[in-house]
């Protein structure tokens, strides 16, 4: 005769371990964010677009066998005739480029499918937009997103700790009435949080036309900008766009590509175009200034401008560039100048750390004009944080 009992626990015993695991995943999402900028155009997309992020599973390492011929497996298939030499599992088609996901044995990939909006939430929750001038759009006041009560579902950063604690107490009280309090090993009352206790702030959609921002993405597209450099620029721009879009209701983007002359282009041409010729960096900020004059008056627009280059500017243009940047800086919420210098692509006769232009611009760096050097894609996130501050989550 066996013993039967109803399991009375109301505790969600794996909750703590799940949240530890989740934090590791979130970190992996952030670490992987510069890898997700695939070929498709995502910079200009709205927040509803769903993207798949390959997140490397948090692995539990063990010694395991690899796939060499000596590693024979055994199968059993009654009813199905099998023959020696019969191929029962095809090798996978050649994967695309080298460092893409999924090549190694045992690689576990969580394909986390999230919207850009959610991605931004994860990335930027802890960061603060520079609190410079509060812009007004015509007569409409800038409205902050407002908390509208709580909901049982949401993302971690929006957890309402107080409300969750209240829910837990409520459940505890009713459990006690039902005589269902569990004692732990020490005979003490144990009453951990249950998933159903958790409450998240609900943030109401922002009112339309509240605030506008315009972003000028400026990039040197001269011959010395290799596709690897542009890849990193794209990752960087992507982050910047997502961040700003996350903070404002309406964001317009202007892509300005330049060699010795600047022009407004679309996203695809911006990243794909290879132009020959020299480099006059000043051409880009001057074009941005013209556009601001014509279309984006600083009284109604929050203006952001970001420039990426390999630093290889023609010397006669440096003076002009500095004055253009000063002028632009004074109109922008944030202006940045970024040099992308890949260690393995750097000419070996060039031993200086930064370009001549770098040291000139350094003198005008300020609260809303910042400078960065990116040596690899791992520098993208730190550079981003350098611009907008904030603690790592």
């Amino acid at each position, binding site marked *: 005769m066996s013993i039967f009992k*109803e*399991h009375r626990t109301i505790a969600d015993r794996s909750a703590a371990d799940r949240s530890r695991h989740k934090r590791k995943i979130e970190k992996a999402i952030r670490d992987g964010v510069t890898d997700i900028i695939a070929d498709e155009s995502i910079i200009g997309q709205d927040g509803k677009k769903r993207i798949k992020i390959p997140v490397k599973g948090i692995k539990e*390492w063990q010694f395991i066998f*690899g796939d060499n011929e000596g*590693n024979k*497996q*055994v199968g059993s298939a009654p009813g199905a005739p*099998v023959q020696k030499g019969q191929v029962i599992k095809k090798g996978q088609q050649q994967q695309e480029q080298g460092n893409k996901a999924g090549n190694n044995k045992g690689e576990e990939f969580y394909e986390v499918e999230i919207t850009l909006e959610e991605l931004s939430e994860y990335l930027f929750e802890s960061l603060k937009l520079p609190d410079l001038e509060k812009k007004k759009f015509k007569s409409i006041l800038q409205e902050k997103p407002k908390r509208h009560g709580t909901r049982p579902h949401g993302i971690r950063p929006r957890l309402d700790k107080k409300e969750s604690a209240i829910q837990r107490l409520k459940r505890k009280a009713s459990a006690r009435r039902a005589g269902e309090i569990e004692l732990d090993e*020490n005979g003490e009352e144990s009453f951990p949080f249950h998933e159903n206790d958790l409450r998240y702030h609900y943030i109401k959609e922002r009112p339309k036309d509240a605030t506008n921002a315009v972003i000028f993405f400026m990039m040197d597209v001269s011959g010395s900008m290799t596709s690897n450099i542009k890849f990193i620029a794209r990752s960087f721009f992507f982050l910047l766009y997502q961040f700003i879009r996350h903070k404002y209701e309406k964001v317009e983007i202007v892509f300005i590509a330049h060699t010795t002359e600047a022009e407004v282009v679309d996203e695809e041409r911006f990243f794909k175009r290879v132009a020959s010729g020299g480099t006059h960096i000043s051409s880009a900020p001057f074009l941005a200034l013209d556009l601001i004059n014509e279309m984006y008056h600083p009284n109604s627009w929050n203006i952001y401008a970001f420039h990426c280059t390999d630093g290889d500017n023609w010397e006669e243009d440096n003076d002009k560039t500095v004055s253009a940047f000063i002028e632009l800086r004074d109109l922008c919420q944030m202006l940045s100048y970024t040099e992308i210098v890949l260690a393995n692509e750097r000419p070996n006769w060039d031993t200086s750390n930064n370009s001549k232009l770098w040291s000139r611009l350094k003198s005008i760096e300020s609260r809303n004009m910042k400078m960065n050097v990116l040596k690899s894609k791992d520098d993208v996130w730190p550079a981003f944080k350098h611009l907008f501050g904030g603690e790592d989550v």
Partner: protein
Amino acid sequence: MTSGLLSNTCLEEKMSDWTFDDLVGWDDKICEIARRHGLDWYEIAYETIDYHEMIGAMAYHGMPSHFSHWSYGKTFERTHSMYNAGLEGLPYELIINSNPSIAYLMLENPLYLQILIMAHCVGHSDFFKNNRTFRETDADHVTRKFRSARQRIQGYIENPHIGIESVEKVIDSCHAIQYQIDRRGRFRLGEKDLKKSLIDKINNDKTGIYKNIDINKKPLEPEFDIMLFILENSNKLEDWERDIIEIVRNESYYFMPQIRTKIMNEGWASFWHYKILNELELPDSLHIPFLKTHNQVLRPWGGRINPYHLGFEIFNKIEKKMGIEECFMAREVMSDESFIMQYLDEEHARELNMFTYSPKGRKNPDWSIDDVADEEGWLEIRSSLIKTIGSNSIPVIYVDDLKDGTLILQHEHDGRDLELDYADNCMKNIEHLWKGKVKLLTTIEDEPFEI
């Protein structure tokens, strides 16, 4: 823990078709039949739980109390999402090797399934109690030990001088070598006795083979229990680190017998649930769904060996050819390795249409069949099967030497290369425990290789 018997049906909101009294009534009948057949099991304590709790229990190997670690959260999420995606059914049964044996019945299961599970659990519990491999698992005290381990680790997590990050790191590292233990069990000669017996051998040595033995070498003999070697030879470990290593090590010794008897254990439980349910004289409304589930669980998987299926087939064959006494003898003295060696014959391999297959080439290879169950092939099939079952699917790595503070490990290469990315990361974890240099010697593509 054994869990399996996956359900492929989706969980719907449905009213259960049974009451507690139904369970008690059927359990009485099951126990009576089982006793009549000579089964001898630990008392079973069934707990009814819901789907969410079942996944939670599974994540912690069914242990009612288990220390906390992110990897169990990962297991939970994976099971949960695989289930939601319809990739995997839920386990019908979960029972642990303890006295009494704790087993879980999922509230959502229909009555016929609960009956099947209860009969299946009797088989498992009988196996836990009688199979020799389990002799050192201390079923009487195991739940208490796990609870105490949990409390201690919780204490380290809450200790401001230690904290969760450091605790996790040590557990991560232990997990990397958790199955690098002595697979035959933990009790053998201690270092002192070993030394003494070796000195005796050297003193009475007439053949000269012991001439060059250095009796101060560490370890004197290959040490398969890497965690033990670190515990005994490191002077850099803090007490709490030692305790965690010991906890993980104990858990490995507790679970190793289950790893080594998966086919027998599942085969034995299935053999008995089938017998018992056929003797229960179930009404058709229960008997037909039972047969359907039974056939679904015990079907061959094609590219992999289904332990339920293979074990069930072999036990049936033994009964038919040699009588039930032989079955009882096997359940007592054997583990999967000897069981397959002893009872899998050519006829059987043919009936089950077994085959071996391997990758051809190194990068993205095709896998093709090497041996089929014929006169020449079946022996190769049997030996490949033995190489891949139970703990044999885990590479054997032992401590060979300790030189100038460097731990030198050796991989016992048996034709199968190590996966290098995993090996690299395991080495980092071992270094974290050893707090010093660690070297591993192995063979990759027929060349000596050092990590």
